[in-house]
């Protein structure tokens, strides 16, 4: 059988799988009855509903004719890795990760790391311009978040401030 719309087929598959997972998870809690609903009742109903809709979406993906096959196309892994990586690096540097022995480095260093890593996701990368952007953002964030909004964020690394 040929898939007529890849987008619909895989979206339907995703909904069906996640729906089944939620419904299956819900059965581990007490379900109860309509008048006395347990914690599993509503999620079980929704999970089944979503799995059914997922199957229907898959079915349309197999049957309804589309012009170009609605291909999902190439995944932009480079962008995914660098944007999400920048975010993770920011979290690790800002709060530290005791389990792997990274001390908290504070906001300023985390901002530089985030901007540099995130910029790698773009089409061109000029280190000096990126550094300039990072500096502007670091100064701006200090003024906006620490000075004006007084958010409780560690600014400098632990080993400097003690």
């Amino acid at each position, binding site marked *: 059988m040929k898939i007529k719309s890849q987008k619909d087929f895989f979206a339907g598959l995703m909904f069906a799988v*996640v729906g089944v997972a939620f419904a299956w998870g819900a059965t581990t809690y007490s379900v109860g009855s309509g008048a006395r609903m347990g914690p599993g009742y509503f999620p079980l109903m929704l999970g089944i509903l979503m799995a059914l809709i997922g199957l229907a979406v898959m079915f*349309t993906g197999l049957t309804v004719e589309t012009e170009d096959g609605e291909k999902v196309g190439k995944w932009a892994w480079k962008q995914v890795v660098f944007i999400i990586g920048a975010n993770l690096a920011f979290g690790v540097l800002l709060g530290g990760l005791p389990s792997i022995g990274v001390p908290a480095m504070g906001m300023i260093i985390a901002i530089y790391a985030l901007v540099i890593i995130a910029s790698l996701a773009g089409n061109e990368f000029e280190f000096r311009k990126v550094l300039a952007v990072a500096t502007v953002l670091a100064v701006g964030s200090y003024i906006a978040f620490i000075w004006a909004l007084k958010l409780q964020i560690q600014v400098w690394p632990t080993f400097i401030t003690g």
Partner: protein
Amino acid sequence: MDLINNLSLGFGVAFTFTNLLYCLIGCILGTLIGVLPGIGPVATIAMLLPATYALPPVSALIMLAGIYYGAQYGGSTTAILVNLPGESSSVVTVIDGYQMARKGRAGPALAAAGLGSFFAGCVGTLILAAFAPPLTELAFKFGPAEYFSLMVLGLIGAVVLASGSLLKAIAMIVLGLLLGLVGTDVNSGVARFSFDIPELTDGIGFVVIAMGVFGYGEIIANLSRPEEEREVFTAKVSGLFPTAEDFKRMTPAVLRGTALGAALGILPGGGALLAAFAAYTIEKKTRLHPGEVPFGKGNIRGVASPESANNAGAQTSFIPLLTLGIPPNAVMALMVGAMTIHNIQPGPQVMTSNPELFWGLIASMWIGNAMLIILNLPLIGMWIKLLSVPYKFLFPAIVLFCAIGVYSTNNNTFDVWMVGIFGFVGYAFFKLGCEPAPLLLGFILGPMMEENLRRALLLSRGDWIVFVSRPISAGLLAAALLLLVIVLLPAVKSKREEAFVED
């Protein structure tokens, strides 16, 4: 008269120095993100939610509201000058607005959008002030069954608004409802779907989902597209004022757009985007006057009407939020989040328990609209300059603001890991052609729906008939069903597809 008394109370609150300042900040920020393509009010409000902890509740809500309607003004500037919708609700403005700019009539197009929005904003605010009290009265008659049915209607409404497949949109709502259930069940104390992770027993953070899916997901999607040649009309926009002929054409269009937008904004699931689409479709149906430019070639009515409609819709979509406590769209869902942060339970009691907040917010909208018309017409040059900032400098800043915003909600790095996951999920939605807005709405309504379903069935001893035997509840469900049937009718279905193809 009550209305006058209430409004004077509201203006008293709104006209303090702090609140005027926050209103101005909100409007400037709103215009800014409206002008910049690739970042919308949902992501911005999510980003600023944590920052409003420190503010008094009235000022916080005034600022956040300003961002929402400010974005409607800013979005049109980008639509007209760059041929890109700066905001999703400006999608249809692109069609005629950009054509006008190419013919050297960018000025009148901008003025038509601005003046139309201003008029619609004022009318929308008045409707909000006039209709909120009687609706609140009605809301007090609502029991759990009515609330449940109302939420069903709201979610079905949201589906009608989503572009693309109906089935997928419904599935996204259900997924949102399910994600909303993660965490401790209030009735039994059981931690559901938390995988023994302590942070998850509090549920998934709303900001986390909003930022991940709307912030990171969209950045990745934007970056993966090949860079298009953008033709920006940054040259001096001359002759801002429309001619007498333009005025004659746009006045009825503005009136039609305002009426339609205000009506659609009140509907659950409605709001700015749907209003703009509907207004443009109606405008296209009307007969062209002799000598008038056809639609799609730079007709001023094609700018004035949808722009008025989206602003009117933006204002009136506050009605269901403020009177019933039910958010009609994703931005209003965020406003629920903002109110809960400040310990205000959204719902009919807000008007009686926090009258200064309720009327202050409404009054600030009128002031905000007045500020926006000044910000957007005489100062247009400033925003045009902003359009020449390349995206490569912009997106690291957006990534940073998302990360800081997420971290500062709970001062917890766990949220930063979660937003990474949802960023990927958001990109997957984009690849699979699933619209994320209904998910966010479902997420907010999930716990509320379960609670009301539970109560309704407890009161009726498990009898589902209660949803159709109570007249208001039955009426709401019938309306939901009617909406579904209308959308599925072959004639409407093809029209709907046609309308969404144009973007």
